[in-house]
């Protein structure tokens, strides 16, 4: 083999290593098409989009906390809490807008609370783990208390239902919301001074602090965004199911974490963005979709998902070398 050819292959190898996530996504799409003839049908694809958008919005929030050098395990609890508040308040007050406002307020409060705790402890990932584990318990408890542990059925306003069920030109509104949120976040992260400062503070808080970046403020912002995204995800989820369970967020934090990390967002902070969220959420959704299409038991699905997360973490570590 000539040197030119060799270097071409090395470069291709390097590209493949840097884009493992994209290759995995393509492989899954091919696998889906081979396994099921319905895979490429518009209905299946749009159903898929609708289904992944809740996790997609959650993954945006989780990624924001990764970018500022932490992570958030409480977003599942926040999702449950916001869901029961949103549906419950709509039911009791008759106003969907009031319910949503309450959910968004609660989500922001929960996120900001995590952010403040991170500021106070000057925490990194270790503190984030414990802090959000604890606040997650609080969130779950609030959800359970509010609805006395029972599911709340409701969602009456048509426009509320449309968020999760409706389409614009046969494209699900939920997916549009998800994509718009990703675009907005991506612009903030990549194209504004604020976003660049956020990423710098996540990548190396010492050097960021020394150039006068408000590292703590960035942490507060990242975690508050995670709370807000959980609230928005709760609104989309409840509008689809027209009900809220205090357990609906169980495991949702892990789904978001897996999607975010599988997509290529790094655990070390400051590296990643919404392209990775898009790829990760699609990979994760496709895996679920394929496992369902092929009729694999849901218990086995957990094994597969767990294995994927472990693989993604190992790849992240190897790529950092």
């Amino acid at each position, binding site marked *: 083999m000539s040197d030119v050819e060799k270097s071409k292959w090395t470069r291709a190898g390097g590209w493949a290593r840097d884009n493992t996530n994209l290759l995995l996504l393509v492989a899954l799409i091919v696998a889906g098409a081979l396994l099921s003839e319905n895979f490429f049908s518009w209905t299946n694809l749009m159903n898929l989009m609708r289904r992944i958008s809740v996790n997609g919005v959650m993954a945006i929030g989780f990624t924001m906390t990764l970018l500022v050098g932490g992570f958030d395990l409480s977003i599942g609890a926040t999702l449950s809490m916001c869901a029961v508040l949103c549906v419950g308040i709509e039911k009791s007050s008759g106003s969907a807008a009031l319910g949503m406002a309450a959910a968004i307020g609660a989500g922001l409060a929960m996120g900001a609370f995590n952010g403040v705790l991170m500021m106070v402890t000057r925490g990194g990932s270790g503190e984030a783990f414990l802090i959000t584990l604890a606040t997650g318990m609080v969130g779950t408890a609030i959800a359970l208390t509010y609805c006395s542990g029972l599911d709340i059925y409701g969602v009456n306003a048509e426009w509320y239902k449309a968020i999760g069920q409706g389409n614009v030109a046969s494209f699900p509104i939920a997916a549009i919301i998800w994509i718009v949120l990703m675009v907005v976040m991506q612009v903030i992260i990549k*194209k504004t001074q604020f976003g*660049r400062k956020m990423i*710098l503070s996540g*990548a190396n808080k010492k*050097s*960021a602090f*020394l150039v006068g970046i408000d590292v703590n403020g960035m942490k507060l912002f990242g975690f508050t965004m995670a709370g807000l995204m959980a609230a928005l995800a709760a609104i989309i989820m409840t509008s689809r199911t027209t009900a809220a369970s205090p357990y609906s967020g169980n495991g949702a934090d892990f789904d978001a974490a897996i999607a975010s990390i599988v997509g290529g967002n790094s655990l070390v902070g400051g590296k990643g963005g919404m392209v990775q969220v898009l790829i990760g959420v699609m990979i994760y959704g496709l895996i679920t979709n394929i496992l369902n299409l092929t009729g694999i038991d849901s218990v086995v699905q957990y094994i597969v998902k767990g294995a994927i997360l472990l693989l993604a973490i190992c790849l992240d570590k190897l790529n950092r070398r």
Partner: protein
Amino acid sequence: MSGTFFEVRDVSKSFPGVKALDCVSMSIERGEVRALVGENGAGKSTLMKVLNGNYKADCGSLLIDGCEVHISDPTVAAQKGISIIFQELNLVSGLSIAENIFAGRLSENGKPIRWREIRKKAKQYLDRIGFDIDPKTEVGQLSVAGKQMVEIAKALSYNAQLILMDEPSASLTQNELEKLFAIIRDLKQKGIAVIYISHRLEEIFSICDTVTVMRDGQIIGTSAVKDVTKDKLVEMMVGREISQTFPQREHHIQEEVLRVENLIRKGGKAKISFNLHRGEVLGIAGLVGAGRTEAMRALYGVDYIAGGSVYVNGKKLSSSSPQAAKEAGIAFLTEDRKEEGLTIDFSIKSNIVMAKLRTIVKRAFLNNAMENRVADKYIQAIKIKTPSRNQKVLNLSGGNQQKVVVAKWFNTDSDIIIMDEPTRGIDVGAKFEIYEIINDLVSQGKAVIMISSELPEILGMSDRVLVMKSDAIVAELIGARINAVDIMNYAF
């Protein structure tokens, strides 16, 4: 005294790019207290680590009572009767005194630990140095002096015949120091030899019998303490030719740009006041641990301050934070490039623009073309050697990494540039370029504060020199008084 007990013969040790020890020979007698002195980087600590088995010498031999010994690691050293007490003490603070003294040999061959006996033996060793304390006490509760006592007791428990002390006095109060001296005299009585490293020459005159001076990895001389003076020691320490060259510059010192009044960091021992002028390079000399870096960190607002104020162009800084300092026009190139100066796995260009993102903003958004232009401007201006502006700084050499840090601060157009060890760990060619950059800055009317532990650099670059010692500015030198002997006299 009873003839040579321990001998070092022709020991050399190299690290990549540095000859840390160059054919060092010395011998020491039983009951002798030997001082080992020298500038930063003279090779004292390296020698200690070779004796202790932490480093393996490239060549040369060690002899105890005339027999060659091979010390492959600290455990072997301890068995041969050599113990070292490091400046940063090697104790486990969560464990008791007794456990620390007998760490690693609490029981033999997996037999159950006999706590009562361990404590009794620990108590005996503590008694021998007159340290009256319950061996069950947790080490974390002891003062630095107390921990040092435990280290000495531990050395005795290994039946040490030679105890190496690396700057034992650095964090002791006068009272504690007296106690340490009493213990050393007692060790001497028992025939134990001590090698005592200290930057405080006064101590050497009060406790040591003999003194060995090291410089650039070599032993310059050994003599009885009673035969030398402090001046003589300093002369031996610094007496070298300055082989490095420094770029010439014209001196145009203008009006005052920075004034520091009674600044004291939290936990600091002294207040500092000084000023700085446009067109001036202010060198800050002193020994490692003299509080130079800490003073600058307090000035820039990185560490908390306990009082004092900073004026830039006559205006007082609103608060003590990097944000306020940077806005006022101060740049701070830290000693620790990798951790504090750079975002190591980001590209060159994002590192260059990070301190002033405003320079790449167009209509409220970051502009990629502007970012590239800014990066290219500095890559060319200060000759950063790289195939691409998108290269991660991780992949650059030390000198080029330092240039990226310089570029980052150039982009803020600050009037005052604080450089902490600007040429540490970079090669000679890149050093010269950094000096040229400094000259260039002052010729533009900016002001530079340069902390350096390399005397030639201080001598070659500074218009004025402040010497620091124990957190205080002990001397301000200008003109002909900027010379090695004067600086070292104040620094020690």
